């Protein structure tokens, strides 16, 4: 089964210098491990929400706004698509992601018609 992992972090919480230094290498290690065992299909980090643009079409008009679609403290900082045998495996994969230790990871199954 395919799952989307939404890597969420509270952008108002600035991680400690030690954490900041450690996360990129730990994330890379996680990606390498999950790539190697065939679980990881794709993923990337995202620019922070101040670089987001929200697009809507209403009455045929394209409405463009600066910022994210929802004003929440927790913002999506990245995403990964994983292929797992079941939710238990997906939970284990998510729990090993370094951001899970201070942010949170939403695991969403792909839509199946």
């Amino acid at each position, binding site marked *: 089964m395919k799952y989307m992992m939404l890597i969420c972090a509270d952008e108002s919480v600035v991680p400690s210098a030690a954490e900041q230094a450690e996360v990129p290498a730990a994330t890379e290690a996680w990606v390498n491990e999950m790539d190697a065992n065939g679980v990881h299909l794709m993923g990337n980090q995202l620019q922070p929400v101040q670089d987001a643009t929200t697009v809507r079409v209403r009455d045929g008009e394209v409405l463009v706004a600066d910022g994210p679609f929802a004003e929440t403290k927790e913002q999506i900082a990245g995403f990964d698509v994983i292929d797992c*045998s*079941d*939710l238990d495996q997906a939970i284990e994969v998510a729990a090993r992601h370094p951001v899970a230790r201070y942010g949170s990871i939403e695991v969403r199954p792909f839509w*199946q018609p």
Partner: protein
Amino acid sequence: MTADIQAAVADAFRAEWGKVVATLIGMTGDWDLAEECAQEAFAQALKAWPRDGIPRRPGAWLTTVARNRALDRLRRGASEAAKLQQAAILTPHENTAGSDVDGEDIPDERLRLIFTCCHPALSLEARVALTLRTLAGLTTAEIARAFLTAEQTMAKRLVRAKQKIRNAGIPYRVPPAHLLPERTAGVLAVLYLLFNEGYTATTGTQLLRLDLCAEAIRLARALAGLMPDEPEAAALLALMLFHHSRRASRVNEAGNLVTLEEQDRSLWDRAEIAEGVSVLESAARRGLRGPYLVQAAIAQCHATAAAAADTDWALIADLYGSLAALVPSPVIDLNRAVAVGMADGPTAGLELVDRLAASGKLAGYYLLPATRADLLRRLGRHAQSAASYREALDLAVNDAERRYLERRLADAAQQR
């Protein structure tokens, strides 16, 4: 229909419902289909058993009928997916086709079902509702009544839970060894919550909801049987049995709460206490002292004391100390303070209670001032005791508990 047959079907329902549903989910992967076919099998039993007699192995009979119903439905469905499911149902049983239905050996798959129902990715309410519906066989209306919810709300909760199991890929299995300890703790927590929900309604006027307690005991007994190497499962069963043995004496005719000390011990269910003692004894022999084992040991101290004055409070205080070491909690510390107050006198108890109050960890919990009030009463400090009873009254939510505190407050006020 004779009363015998009706009783036999009712017994089979209690004993076999969960097994039939568990087996059918294992075969079809379809929870709704499994429930509907199980239901039809029991309806069929009501028709067939008076005519043909009660089968030698009712569980095997019911499972076979339910499986055939599922096959019929899938054949009628005839989609590719249905054909695949159909093949899956037939394969493991081809070699037994035509054999005596009664003689067929059907493995008990309830453990897979209970671990799936209690999966941590489901909300706690959903876990409880699913367990009662699929394992215990309670109807949606019965579950709704037990939890004081509208039937429609409960039906929606069950539908959503089953959807999540399917859509999110929650596996239908007993978890592998590395997940088993935490998942087992999760299952035990659901069963204990179920029991407590029945034992003390958190709000409202009805203190005891015995049906939920009986269901919880039945489920715990099944779990202890299915997990013979897990002492905590047996310990939970023993704990429930000790609590349940006191049900006839906990509330008096006026609906008022009776404290352990004042309960009429001749009303306690001796058979349940004896079962609890023997279940706990065999659990304790299997080693490791887990939190349910310690709680059951405490409950046993109370259940086996011939009179309130015979209670071994020093042992209870020790056991609360061990429990707090396993699962640190201010509520356990408060219980330990009560036990110390009984073993070493109210001054020692009050000292511990005041330390807890100062920590602020139990702010808003009515039993903290209620315990303090009781210790003060025993020290003859009646004015302070009354003040603490008043504080407790402001915080209590259950009507029976409030009435108890009001009586105590009236006594304290008279003593002044």
